[in-house]
């Protein structure tokens, strides 16, 4: 057994987190910053943070991840990181020539109490910020919230620093994107384009974190929301925030700053969340939903109905982030599956409310968020009463192997399989992709483990 020390028996843990279902804020901020064209993320802290985050993102996307670090030394920790950041800004604009540097803090600089507004304005005063370039920042103390919080803070910072209301409103819908893959965003952009809705998606990872290999390395790949577009978000008609925990702050900030009203929606995973997304987009962009999308929906329903026998009543354990888990759980329930154990390290009241509602007909379901809502807990539950399927990031594979469980990878990080940034989970096609993955996981497991006389040629 890989996880040989995990037993069914629980103790009431208060302090020790074991195999977390979360990580810390800065990586989320770094990720979000990559979704702005020409933006170089910068980690204001020790070198290690930056190195860890770049490695984690590289392993997940199998793409170059660039970011600067303030390279704190013991001295900076005592005297503050101002000098480091000013020098970093100078160095980066000179050598790497970004359009914007997006600074995020770390537990180190937060504990010290560095005042970023002041430091950045000192850098500007010192002439370290070239004409037309910009340094923005967000506070991402690692000891508050999780990577999801960091993502949210970075997205909110885009609003704070870029969005501008001019007198001229535009018939455009902002889509504030929660944590998802470039593939997921590509699908959302395809849907909005089929709808003929004018939208600004931010941050936008397409053509950034799935960049082509063509022999040229581009430090700032073609994709990403342009700063021009980010500015224009203030003139848009409405904002759809996809994923409460990642986008609510940005939506509120934009409403406060530029009077753009908003609606929070789930990331469109599964047909119900996709339905709501399309209907909301339709309503707010004042465009009809074309028949071709009804057909896509119908194809997904067709696939689910054909697979229904295999899905019905299957017990599923899930771990990941609230914005993914909420629509994913709803999707599983809508396919008559039973998501029975769900954990997220990200503390969220909203998660609790939504899960309570979604799981109201599954009394055996347990879910937990925040501290100690970790994979050790999830595994203990599985040891207590088994499941038919596990869904989550790469760390799930250890549980899956120990318990001989079908396993579908979803979430962050996925370090041991390629292609998740190529194939969407969002929209109806993404739903079909998930159904196919789940079915393959079930059927591969059955075909491998059943008695020889039970091997079947057909479904």
């Amino acid at each position: 057994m890989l996880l040989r020390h995990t037993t069914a028996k629980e103790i009431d843990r208060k302090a020790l987190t074991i195999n977390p279902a979360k990580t810390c804020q800065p990586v989320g901020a770094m990720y979000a910053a990559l979704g702005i064209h020409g933006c170089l993320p910068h980690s204001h802290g020790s070198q290690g943070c930056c190195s860890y985050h770049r490695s984690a993102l590289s392993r997940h996307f199998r793409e170059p991840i660039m970011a600067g670090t303030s390279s704190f030394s013991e001295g900076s920790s005592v005297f503050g990181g101002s000098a480091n950041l000013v020098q970093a800004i100078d160095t980066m604009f000179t050598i790497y020539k970004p359009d914007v540097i997006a600074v995020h803090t770390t537990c180190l600089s937060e504990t010290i109490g560095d005042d970023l507004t002041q430091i950045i304005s000192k850098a500007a005063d010192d002439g370290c910020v070239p004409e037309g370039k910009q340094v923005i920042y967000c506070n991402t103390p690692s000891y508050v919230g999780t990577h999801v919080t960091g993502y949210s803070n970075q997205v909110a910072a885009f609003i704070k620093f870029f969005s501008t209301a001019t007198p001229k409103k535009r018939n455009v819908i902002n889509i504030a994107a929660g944590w998802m893959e470039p593939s997921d965003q590509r699908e959302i952009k395809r849907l909005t384009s089929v709808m003929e809705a004018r939208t600004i998606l931010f941050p936008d990872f397409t053509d950034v974190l799935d960049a082509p290999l063509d022999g040229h390395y581009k430090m700032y790949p073609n994709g990403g929301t342009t700063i021009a577009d980010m500015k224009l978000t203030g003139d848009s008609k409405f904002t759809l925030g996809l994923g409460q925990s990642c986008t609510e702050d940005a939506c509120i900030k934009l409403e406060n700053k530029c009077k753009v009203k908003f609606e929070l929606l789930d990331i469109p995973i599964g047909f119900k969340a996709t339905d709501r997304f399309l209907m909301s987009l339709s309503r707010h962009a004042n465009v009809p939903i074309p028949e071709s999308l009804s057909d896509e929906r119908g194809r997904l329903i067709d696939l689910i109905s054909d697979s229904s026998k295999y899905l019905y009543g299957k017990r599923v354990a899930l771990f990941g982030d609230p914005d993914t888990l909420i629509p994913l759980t709803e999707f599983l329930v809508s396919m008559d599956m039973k998501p029975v154990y769900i954990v997220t390290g990200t503390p969220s009241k909203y998660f609790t409310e939504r899960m309570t509602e979604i799981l109201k007909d599954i009394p055996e379901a347990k879910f937990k968020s925040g501290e100690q809502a970790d994979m050790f807990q999830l595994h203990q539950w599985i040891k207590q009463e088994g499941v038919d399927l596990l869904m989550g990031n790469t760390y799930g594979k250890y549980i899956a192997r120990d318990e001989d469980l079908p396993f579908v990878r979803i979430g962050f990080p996925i370090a041991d399989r390629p292609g998740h940034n190529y194939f969407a989970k969002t929209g109806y096609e993404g739903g079909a992709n998930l159904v196919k993955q789940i079915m393959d996981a079930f059927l591969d497991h059955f075909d491998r483990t059943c008695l020889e006389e039970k091997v079947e040629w057909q479904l």
Partner: protein
Amino acid sequence: MGKTLIDELEMSKFTEEVVKAYPKKVAKKRSKSIVINDPDSIPQIQSNVRTIPGIITQRGCTYAGCKGVVLGPTRDIVNITHGPIGCGFYSWLTRRNQTRADKPEMDNFIPYTFSTDMQDSNIVFGGEEKLKVAIREAVELFNPKGIAIFSTCPVGLIGDDVHRVARQMKEEFPGVNIFGFSCEGYRGVSQSAGHHIANNGLYKHLIGRNDNPTRKYKYAVNVLGEYNIGGDAFVIEDLFERIGVDIIATMSGNSTLEQFETAHTADFSLVMCHRSINYVAEMLETSFGIPWAKANFIGAEATAKTLRKVGQYFGDQELIDRIEEVIADEMKAVNAAIEKARAKTEGKTAMMFVGGSRAHHYQELFSELGMETLVAGYEFGHRDDYEGRRVIPTIQIDADSRNIEEITVYPDPTRYKPRKTEEELAQLREAFDIEFNEYKGMMNDMKKGTLVIDDLSHYEMEKLIELYKPDVFCAGIKEKYVVQKMGIPMKQLHNYDNGGPYAAFEGAINFYKDIEMIACSTIFKQMKAPWEREEVLEAEYVFN
């Protein structure tokens, strides 16, 4: 594509190009870390100095060096990261430290990560209490033999004393060896500080606590600075089993607490990664009288040489014969594999920028493949790793290094026993050219005219590739996809791209095959769409 020789490549062009792009101060500083090698009069290279803020570097932090590198690979310690969740998360299973706990009842905590998951209230009011509770929970759940506590950045700042907590908890749980590390990420200038701190901890809390090692054979060694990435330590263990020599402790690949506790009973220490473990090697020598020599199991010839060193050291003809037998036996497959691979690899070029020793060691493997290493450098090396230990006395200690505890050790009152007399050592030196307690550094082994670059930056890497178009570039995960986007095959030498083992004879063969694969693989020829290739455009692709 055969490459021209180093002389023709104008390696000096590089420095010019790079310096142009940097701000003046940066250029001045960086130019001291970029030198053209001459093995006969090794030039001084600036290293182990702060990275300039804003420079995109390969480097990580002290915590990574201490917890991630040195302590992480030991399977029966519950390693609790005291801090916010990130540090524990990122050092969880990310270094491919393979481990083999043969029996189901044996401890193996490698697939777990443990953290106090500090919240803002812990930062404000202090985290010691939470750490204590966490330790109690760990004991209740896992009842481990040992618990190590690793400090992350805020711990030092808020004044949490992990050593005091460790002492208190050790009193509460007398059966559990509990100890802490002040390895906050901001200490030092790179992972290197963490290695040093870890070495100190190993010495203070583990080494020498058990005088009864499990031994099978007459002779016993330690293998230091070998972390069992991709299973390297497994093949080294096999090799020693075949020659009939015990490995008391590997530090720290595939290791256990017991190995550390008995390491002082070995007869000889072989040092793989000089940078990360030389402190322990030295301390074992000073306290217990165990000589150390630099060893290398990367490369077939290097492995043979290291094994012979062991035979010569013990001076036992039977052992020497067994070693020669094993070498002869293994070299058959090695030579066949080399011959096969060289047809594809001969004359190709490599660049490598990794850790503390691999950038040196892997040059052996490339040279066995007929490939030239044009440029190399360390991510966190010191001058002695480049220029050799002889420069140690001349290294200026700066503020960053001064902050790292330097422990002074003395001969153990009861257990100090020089394994060889000074005379014996001198004889061995003379007869077999074995250098004891010495490392000559990487530059000594690199050709004249090659480039040596410390703490390579992203920008410099791009330039190197643009200018010299190597056939293979070796570094880590952060560099991997940049290099490949430029159409150059990239070989990770931190984690081997999930390959390996690459150590010893078996590993060498694996490496030859993997490099041959890189040399033969055709996908990078397909980067340009045919309608964008000139020959296609000209030849046939004309719009009607």
